[in-house]
């Protein structure tokens, strides 16, 4: 059973960056891949995604950088104290090197810095949090940044109207005596192709044929785009997420109903309502941001906290957060807030790209 607990660690702050441009799903753009089998109105009603943020220039690291800069300033952290950086994304700046290395330099962190990329999607923030918490728990490293999100894709193609761009920063620090985090994790790689980008890795090297347009599940796309078996992902989400939360609560001996907030990965409204219903949660405890931002992959949990709970995270609030999706992979974390600094949403201009680490 993949349960973990890390004490003496706390979230010091959270921030989120999004592009300024807002795309409406009621008025799809030419390159929005809205299926012809339903109307834009039916899409919005079922998925709960009215609009989302997009940029053709900003990468995930640009958005995370802007979020991190704001958060570091508001926390008053010295950059030299930040000795670990974990970047969670499936849209890295380059195939190599790891984007975490680029961000260490761009953020002006010390070279005495542990940096790594984690290639997970919807479950990624919870996994990244466990990585960072495990690094900090014994106090050798005192401060760390978890940067998570997804944005500009590897190749152009019709956009999936479900997904928006966002990059987040979560500041985590050693805090002696803090109750820390309790985690549950799970993986089912037999569902590896439920959400997959087939070409561009070493299994199927990228070639001109990778860009031939074909019909996949009612949509026209090439093989460097991400394809999804929507029904399989839906049934996975509604069955796995509630179980993971119940397992976590049972293992660590708490009543999950006593938690103040349940922040789920923002998959789609129908899926999230179903998960909340199965756990018998009241709407007030289940904030959502997908109406305005869509599904933002590993950014969706911190983005929901920043946009929906900015002024509601007083001390001692009990959180349960659950991410689930591509992998298939899932993770749930429970923690209590303690003086969290929550930055206002950072709206990033298209020009604010990295100008230095460019070849």
């Amino acid at each position, binding site marked *: 059973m993949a349960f973990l607990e890390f004490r003496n660690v706390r979230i010091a702050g959270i921030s989120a960056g999004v592009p300024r441009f807002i795309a409406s799903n009621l008025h799809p753009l030419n390159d929005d891949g809205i*299926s012809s*089998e*339903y109307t834009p109105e*039916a*899409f919005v009603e*079922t*998925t709960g995604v009215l609009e989302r943020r997009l940029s053709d220039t900003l990468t995930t690291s640009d958005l995370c950088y802007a979020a991190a800069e704001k958060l570091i300033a508001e926390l008053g952290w010295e950059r030299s104290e930040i000795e670990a950086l974990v970047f969670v994304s499936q849209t890295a700046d380059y195939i190599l090197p790891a984007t975490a290395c680029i961000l260490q330099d761009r953020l002006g962190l010390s070279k005495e810095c542990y940096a790594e990329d984690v290639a997970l999607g919807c479950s990624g923030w919870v996994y990244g949090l466990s990585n960072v918490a495990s690094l900090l728990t014994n106090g050798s490293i005192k401060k760390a940044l978890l940067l998570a999100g997804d944005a500009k894709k590897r190749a152009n193609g019709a956009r999936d109207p479900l997904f928006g761009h966002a990059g987040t920063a979560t500041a985590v620090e050693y805090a002696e005596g803090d109750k820390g985090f309790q985690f549950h994790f799970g993986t089912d790689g037999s569902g590896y192709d439920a959400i997959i980008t087939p070409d561009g890795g070493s299994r199927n090297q990228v070639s001109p044929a990778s860009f031939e347009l074909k019909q996949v*599940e*009612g949509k026209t796309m090439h093989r460097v785009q991400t394809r999804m*078996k*929507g*029904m*399989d992902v*839906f*049934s996975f989400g*509604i*069955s796995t997420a509630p179980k993971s939360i119940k397992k976590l609560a049972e293992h660590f001996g708490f009543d999950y109903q006593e938690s103040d907030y349940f922040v789920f990965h923002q998959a789609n409204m*129908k*899926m999230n309502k*179903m998960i909340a*219903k199965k756990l018998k949660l009241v709407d007030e405890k289940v904030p959502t941001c997908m109406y305005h931002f869509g599904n933002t992959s590993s950014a969706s949990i911190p983005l929901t906290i920043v946009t929906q709970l900015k002024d509601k995270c007083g001390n001692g609030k009990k959180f349960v957060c659950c991410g689930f999706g591509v992998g298939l992979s899932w993770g749930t974390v429970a923690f209590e807030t303690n003086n969290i600094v929550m930055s206002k949403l950072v709206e990033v201009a298209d020009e604010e790209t990295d100008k230095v680490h460019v070849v």
Partner: protein
Amino acid sequence: MDLKGFIKNFSDQFDDTDSSVITAETNFHNLDEWSSLIALSIIAMVDEEYDVTLKGDDIKNAQTVEDLFNTVKAKL
């Protein structure tokens, strides 16, 4: 579980299709209103009413409402 109740639960997922149109023999993929979004409602309904997890292939491989009823019944 009975077929009649299943057909009722199935047709409840449609907004614009009259329930009288949907019978055990209906090939639901051919209904005008059928879409991948309705399919999600069907998966949610089956999970809720019968505690059975349907996969995409279960929906794709069933032709009629009764086929899907039999798939769910076999998983009970």
